[in-house]
């Protein structure tokens, strides 16, 4: 079959809603886009452990400590799961990891913001995991089988994270004056960065059209963002939290909530590496990676020796 025929057949399968599996033929560009997107996603799960891990040791009750530890542990699991899914495309976790800790590969910018109070942990659960759910629910329908399946499994846990964050934030928003202040302050700080998680506006998003054509995504950045805003407005009202956007208002004609101008300058600045915690995050991940080198070497050396011994014995 010539290239064009293969391509047409590939597109036909996608339009039919079939899943593409690792052994199937796929255009090089499809493979590359998936590797980029999925590895970014995996890196984000892992880097995301840092801002939240920042509060495990200071969590204000044993229950909260357990909840947070379990959440951060889940995120490590998500990272592992997505890395395995990317590896089906013929790359290794190790090279992908080195691309972001030493190179130019990206992870979600949201994790370049600091967690200043414990309320940030709750706001992250509610908003950041909430936004991740909107995005990942779409990705669960992605045309690439392994990615789609990993999302189905991960979404269940993200829903749980969101619920726990939201409930604790509600408690704080209705707690002592200090708790209220922390809760509102956290939401004020996390709101706009969360909206940026969906990526640049559609007219500045170079990859979107292609990803949609190939069924990797089914909605544009702005569509996803809008559906997140719509559901979050009501949730905020319910717990007496104000979203820090004076332009937020219901649009009867569209049936959606209109929101104000997103500070995109800040977004691009953080992407360029100048967010409040960019350097710190990369430094922490590099340190873990480099300080772990001797451990990984020991494990593989031990495995090698053991294999040798087992072979001799049999």
């Amino acid at each position, binding site marked *: 079959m010539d290239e064009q025929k293969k391509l047409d057949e590939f597109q036909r399968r996608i339009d039919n809603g079939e899943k593409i599996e690792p052994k199937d033929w796929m255009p090089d560009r499809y493979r590359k886009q998936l590797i980029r997107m999925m590895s970014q996603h995996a890196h984000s799960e892992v880097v995301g452990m840092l801002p939240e891990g920042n509060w495990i040791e200071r969590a204000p*009750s*044993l229950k909260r400590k*357990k909840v947070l*530890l379990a959440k951060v542990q889940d995120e490590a699991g998500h990272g592992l799961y997505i890395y395995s899914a990317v590896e089906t495309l013929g790359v290794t976790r190790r090279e992908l990891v080195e691309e972001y800790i030493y190179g130019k590969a990206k992870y979600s910018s949201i994790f370049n913001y600091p967690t200043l109070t414990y309320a940030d942990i709750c706001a992250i659960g509610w908003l950041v995991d909430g936004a991740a759910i909107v995005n990942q629910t779409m990705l669960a329908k992605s045309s690439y089988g392994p990615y789609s399946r990993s999302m189905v499994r991960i979404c269940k846990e993200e829903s749980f994270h969101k619920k726990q964050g939201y409930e604790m934030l509600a408690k704080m928003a209705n707690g002592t004056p200090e708790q209220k202040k922390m809760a509102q302050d956290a939401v004020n700080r996390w709101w706009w960065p969360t909206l940026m998680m969906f990526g640049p506006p559609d007219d500045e998003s170079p990859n979107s059209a292609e990803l949609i054509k190939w069924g990797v995504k089914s909605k544009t950045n702005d569509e996803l963002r809008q559906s997140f805003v719509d559901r979050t407005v009501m949730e905020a009202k319910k717990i007496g939290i104000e979203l820090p956007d004076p332009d937020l208002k219901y649009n009867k004609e569209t049936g959606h909530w209109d929101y104000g101008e997103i500070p995109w300058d800040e977004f691009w600045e953080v992407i360029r590496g100048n967010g409040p915690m960019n350097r710190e995050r990369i430094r922490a991940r590099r340190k873990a990676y480099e300080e772990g080198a001797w451990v990984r070497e020991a494990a593989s050396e031990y495995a090698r020796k053991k294999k040798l011994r087992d072979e001799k014995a049999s």
Partner: protein
Amino acid sequence: MSTLDKTPVKRDEILFEYLVRLADDRLILGQRLSEWSGHGPELEEDLALANIALDMIGHASGLYTYAAEIEGEGRDEDDLAYFRDDIDFKNFQMLEQPKGDLAYTIARQFLFSLYSYLLYMELKDADDEQFAGLASKHLKEIRYHLRHSREWVLRLGDGTEESHRRIQDAFDDIWMYTGELFEMDEVDKKAAEEGFGADLAKLRKPWKEHVDEVLDEATLTVPDDNQYMASGGRTGFHTEHLGHMLAQMQFLRRSYPDAEWT
């Protein structure tokens, strides 16, 4: 127990003290282990260490809750974890030591998990239904901690030259803190008499035998027992590390004592 505390006399007082000691051990170690979160050498290990940390804190929380119930003064697990100072904490000094490198973390985890395993094998038959129930529930998880840390002792000991050196150093460093695990003070003796405490001195032999066996397989040298052994954790006498850990752990909860966090 600070230097001002009296030795408990009544059964409930002894049981309370006994439970709090065990809980303190687990909370402090869990807190240390959680420092690895996001910083482990490999994602799999991040997961495993977080998992053990979670178990440790879970065990502590179960023990504190029961202790508070026995005490009957309206305290709860968080009162015991967050509103006591270092001189009131009864954990073994071994467990408050900084996490060190992975070799140190693993060496400590192995020694303590093995100790816990042998101890809980006794406690699961404690003459107190609720306590025995907790112990046998936790025992399943302790088995996993022991298996996990034992495997790593082998990997590191019999891995590369560097890993061998690191884990040997770790065992050498930590050894002086193993003595107090087997000390029997008044509380331990009374707890044993009441039928819910274990004879710790008796655990020493099987513990040592298993340590010898595993370290031997890992091509490591078992440190000399004939050395200075630290002691005092059970009386509230600690190294300086504990105060800093508690300062961090307790600050938020203590800053706003009227706030609800559960």
